[in-house]
């Protein structure tokens, strides 16, 4: 490795860091026996940067040269920044060298668009292919699918990568047109459709022939930039819901807009990225995917934006006081999941534990259920305590908003991947 590689790594990691996806989960790839590596189904974080975000993958761009000029992107062609391009060999050596030292779970490779989308995709596929076939590398690979690349190249990519992603970036079409006139939503949705169809097809194929090669086993994801445009949380979350159900996406990432382009008047002048809003969107996303909430229950036309002061589940409970208190000894799982402060794990514990005995506050505390918020919304085997109905929603809100010392700031997806509450 020469000095040049240091500079390249600097430049190309810098350009890639705004992609917030860090997951290395969702795939279980065994070591081929004499090769390098495997992929753990749950994903492993290896380090945490000063911003508290997880480092799981070597996240770099193949090149940050780009023919496009999207206002929100640091690699836009009109931006005056140092540019570089990795060779396949350099990338392979870096990935394997890092992997063998247990620095990373694998490679996340993205790219600016050079010559044309299909050519760019071909370069990305080339790196993945080299790793898998020449170096018998079984670690994780996440590739960007380049909008406008041919079906053939995208299908190739799916054979070598664990996950593919196409970034939507701007939630609504008119705003995308404004900031990136060379792009449109259709060109983004179209590769998603190809990948989605490929995954479904592959599932059937593997049912018939278990030895058929896997296609994008960890599924696909996308990213939305928050706060660069005037889109409401409702339009963002409706889009997410569509992507989860319509396109079968595994993850939608939300990335608070960083003022990386201060000269362009089409973009808002902000001092700090909207981290709190980003965090609330992740919580809403979690409610939709793991807590059986519908998006209409979280945001609606009457309140199109999430409350920044309280989490969306608490917000839902305060708007619907008549559903409470929930009896933890009788209510079904779905309802227990709706208690503010009670996570999936706690809910499952409650369901199990109550088959042995009737639960009281002491039991709940002992098994690790956080009662700070929950206590206003439950009843259990104990004398009744004041709940939301006696105290009234506005007072419960006031009590819970009182500042507590030592509150840990949780930003975005940087928190451990499963415990958002």
């Amino acid at each position, binding site marked *: *490795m020469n000095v040049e590689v240091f500079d390249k*790594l600097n430049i190309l990691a810098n350009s890639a860091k705004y992609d917030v996806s860090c997951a290395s989960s969702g795939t279980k790839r065994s070591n081929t026996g004499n090769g390098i590596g495997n992929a753990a189904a749950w994903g492993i974080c290896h*380090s945490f940067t000063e911003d508290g975000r997880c*480092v799981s993958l070597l996240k770099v761009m193949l090149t940050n040269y780009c023919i496009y000029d999207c206002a929100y992107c640091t690699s836009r062609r009109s931006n005056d920044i140092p540019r570089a391009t990795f060779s396949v060999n350099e990338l392979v050596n*870096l990935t394997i060298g890092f992997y063998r030292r247990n620095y990373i779970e694998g490679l996340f490779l993205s790219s600016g668009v050079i010559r044309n989308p299909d050519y760019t995709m071909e370069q990305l596929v080339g790196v993945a292919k080299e790793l898998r076939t020449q170096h018998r590398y079984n670690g994780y690979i996440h590739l960007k699918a380049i909008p406008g690349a041919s079906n053939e190249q995208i299908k190739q990519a799916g054979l070598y990568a664990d996950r593919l992603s196409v970034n939507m970036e701007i939630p609504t079409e008119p705003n995308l047109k404004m900031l990136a006139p060379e792009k449109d939503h259709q060109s983004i949705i179209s590769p998603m459709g190809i990948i989605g169809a490929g995954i479904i097809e592959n599932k059937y194929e593997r049912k018939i022939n278990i030895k058929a090669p896997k296609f994008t086993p960890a599924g696909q994801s996308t990213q939305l930039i928050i706060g660069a445009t005037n889109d409401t949380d409702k339009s963002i979350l409706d889009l997410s819901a569509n992507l989860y159900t319509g396109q079968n996406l595994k993850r939608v990432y939300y990335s608070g807009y960083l003022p990386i382009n201060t000269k362009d008047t089409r973009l808002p002048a902000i001092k700090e990225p909207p981290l709190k809003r980003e965090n609330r969107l992740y919580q809403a996303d979690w409610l939709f995917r793991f807590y059986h909430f519908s998006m209409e229950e979280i945001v609606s036309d009457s309140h199109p934006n999430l409350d920044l002061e309280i989490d969306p589940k608490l917000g839902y409970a305060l708007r619907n006081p008549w559903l409470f208190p929930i009896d933890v000894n009788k209510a079904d799982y779905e309802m227990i999941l709706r208690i503010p402060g009670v996570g999936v794990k706690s809910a499952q514990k409650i369901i199990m*534990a109550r088959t042995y005995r009737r639960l009281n506050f002491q039991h709940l505390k*002992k098994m690790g259920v956080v009662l700070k918020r929950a206590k206003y919304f439950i009843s259990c085997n104990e004398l009744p305590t004041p709940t939301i109905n006696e105290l009234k929603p506005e007072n419960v809100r006031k009590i819970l908003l009182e500042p507590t010392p030592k509150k840990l700031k949780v930003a975005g997806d940087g928190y451990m991947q499963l415990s958002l509450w």
Partner: protein
Amino acid sequence: MEIYIYDKTFEGFLSVVFYAFETKTTPFKIMQRGINQSMLFSKEIQIVTELEKSERVWNGLLKKINKKNADMIYRVFLSELPDVELLLLNYIQLVFSYKRSVFGDFGNPIVAEVHDIHKRVSREAEHTLMFVRFKKTADNIYFAPFEPKYNVLPISIKHFKDRFADQKWVIYDTIREYGYYYNLFDVQEIRFVDSNISRSGDIDKSILNTEELVFQDLWKNYFKSVSIKERSNKRLQMHNMPKRFWKHLTEMQ
């Protein structure tokens, strides 16, 4: 008041359980042999480790609870927390007194505590997978010193054996002064003779592979360049990556 003395091994502990069931007694304390802490007014009973007896206890457990739940007992044992043996003996007594599996009875304080310790031990084992950092030596062995809070290497090494099947490696617990060596075929328990290395895990730069420092620099370089200044949140970093691991983390040097 009886005190059982055993040899600190898990098999030894299961022999303790066997003895307690056989004599229908519950001791006041279960202690390791060699720890000089005689107590007034108590009677010490030396329990000899007998594999046949430990196996009978283990098989008996497997009849009442599934393998995963039985493994939980082993993992909790690895916490080496004060009086964890007595807690586990109480737990095993529950296992045999229940008609069904005790696993889900989170309302019982003993069951809840076993679950709680299990969670902490599992988290520490996860930390191993996350924060072990290998250094490549001149003779092509990847070496990683580590300081886990609990004795979790025995439950972590399978992961490394599967993942790094084509490289020789050593993971060494410098607190408990023992480690594991994988020689491309199987994993062996080892102890360094040099007590200095054994305690610190520091190896001399001269025995590192020539490319090692280059990769360390590349990694540090990468780590710095991916942090987003505008989002700085060092408390969250510290929460996710506790300071006690920093000593052996390449990127934090």
